[in-house]
């Protein structure tokens, strides 16, 4: 860790970098942004924006259940989110129509249950910070978790992306080519669940979904193939992430909102460019 800190201080000769919490925040965002971007490409392709939103909401239940049973928040949230995502995925596969209604049912129950338990135990205020998030509160230990998630999800994307892509175009074609659709889909949603839960404490339940959707949706406006789709999404995600942290340092805006506002600006710029690029 010290080595990375030293490198950062040499590379970035600004006063903000002398604070450890800023170094941690920068490292975290550099690890997180590309993951948000690449997972986002297929969330947008599969029209799963609502799905990942529901997943974010389930974090609240995860925290609450963790508290009830005295398990650490991180583990409780991740385990709950994985179960929740697999359940949602099964429901999605079983019903051809009205999936959004069922996802909404799951999502509301998850929030209500989380709020009810937390309020009941009288601890809600302590956890309300999860709604907004605080990226400057990242610890070194959490960065190590992030680094592991980074490697795992990157490997999933290298080895399974082709299959995830084929499923997104047509599940019957995927099945006829021997792809285990349910398994691959589950791995995909579990990856989303893990990354959402690992970052929710810093980004906040309210905004986490925008980080998955906005960079990919912006990139989709102007990308002509899968390589561009990924590259532009990663660049937009990284630039908004890093710039968001700096803005929040200098003008005292919470980091999550700063990042999302920047991504939103990217979305509208690419939306305007859309016809010029692809027309």
């Amino acid at each position, binding site marked *: 860790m010290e080595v990375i800190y030293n490198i950062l201080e040499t590379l970035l000769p600004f006063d903000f970098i002398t604070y450890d919490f800023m170094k941690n925040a920068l490292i975290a965002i550099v690890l997180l942004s590309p993951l948000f971007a690449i997972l986002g490409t297929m969330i947008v392709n599969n029209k799963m924006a609502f799905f990942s939103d529901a997943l974010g909401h389930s974090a609240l239940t995860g925290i609450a259940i963790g508290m009830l049973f005295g398990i650490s928040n991180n583990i409780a949230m991740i385990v709950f989110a994985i179960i929740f995502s697999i359940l949602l995925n099964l429901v999605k596969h079983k019903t051809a129509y009205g999936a959004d209604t069922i996802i909404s049912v799951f999502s509301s129950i998850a929030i209500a249950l989380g709020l009810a338990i937390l309020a009941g135990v009288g601890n809600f205020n302590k956890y309300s910070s999860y709604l907004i998030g605080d990226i400057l509160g990242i610890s070194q230990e959490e960065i190590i978790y992030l680094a592991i998630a980074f490697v795992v999800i990157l490997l999933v994307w290298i080895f399974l992306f082709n299959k995830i892509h084929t499923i997104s175009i047509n599940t019957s074609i995927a099945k*006829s080519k021997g792809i285990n659709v349910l398994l691959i889909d589950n791995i995909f949603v579990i990856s989303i669940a893990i990354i959402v839960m690992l970052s929710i404490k810093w980004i906040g339940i309210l905004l986490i979904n925008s980080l998955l959707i906005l960079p990919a949706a912006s990139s989709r406006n102007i990308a002509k193939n899968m390589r561009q789709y990924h590259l532009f999404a990663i660049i937009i995600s990284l630039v908004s992430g890093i710039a968001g942290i700096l803005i929040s340092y200098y003008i005292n805006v919470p980091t999550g909102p700063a990042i999302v506002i920047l991504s939103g600006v990217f979305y509208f710029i690419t939306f305007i460019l859309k016809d010029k690029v692809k027309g």
Partner: protein
Amino acid sequence: MEKSSSCGFHCIKIKDIGVKLGKDEILKNVSIHIHCGELTVIIGRNGAGKSTLLKAILGEIKHTGTIEFFDIKQEKYENLKIGYVPQSINVEKHMPTTVYDFVAAIISNKPIWLKKYKDVYEKIKEHLKIFQADSLIDKSIGDLSGGELQRVLLSVATIDNPNLLILDEPVSGIDRNGIKEFFNLVDVLKKEYDMAIILVSHDFNLVKKFADKVVLLDKTIIKQGTPDEIFSSKEYKERFED
């Protein structure tokens, strides 16, 4: 894809297929024999169970009965490899998936989002040529015309030399010329590549011209035989000419 002269030594036996959805019996006692180099067309009214039958053969839904692939020359059963052309796919205008991306993701394990692989690109282009679709390789699949998309889907379905090709009403949304062109391509696949093909179609004029065998389906097989036999039968007339 390898060209081969008609061998007639492969046989796909669809035996006694039945599908139930809850209490409803959607299909029962469906048995069809299909040979390589033969075009079998399934016709029937809406709700007759055509798409359900295809899904059962593809193994996508629970069914009773069996599907066997038999090599007559070597006298043994083999694994059946199926190529499938669906009715429609999930596409949007300008989407960032090119024809290359779509096909490469299916035939190659190298991650398509990292870089473009020259060897894969050339292989795909070569195969697309059979369907006069090689010029489409860098186009977005969302920007193809109905006919162009069908040709791409046909090349995807055939790229790994399947034993059986299943085409689900692939001609909807294409103009008259497109439909004819499509049937011509299917005919080439049948004759030059010796494929066994099952097609669901509503275009009876073209079915008369191209099909080797027609199956009239209405929850079960009402009648099967040559196009002439089916289209002159009273069972066909009862269902389509009133």
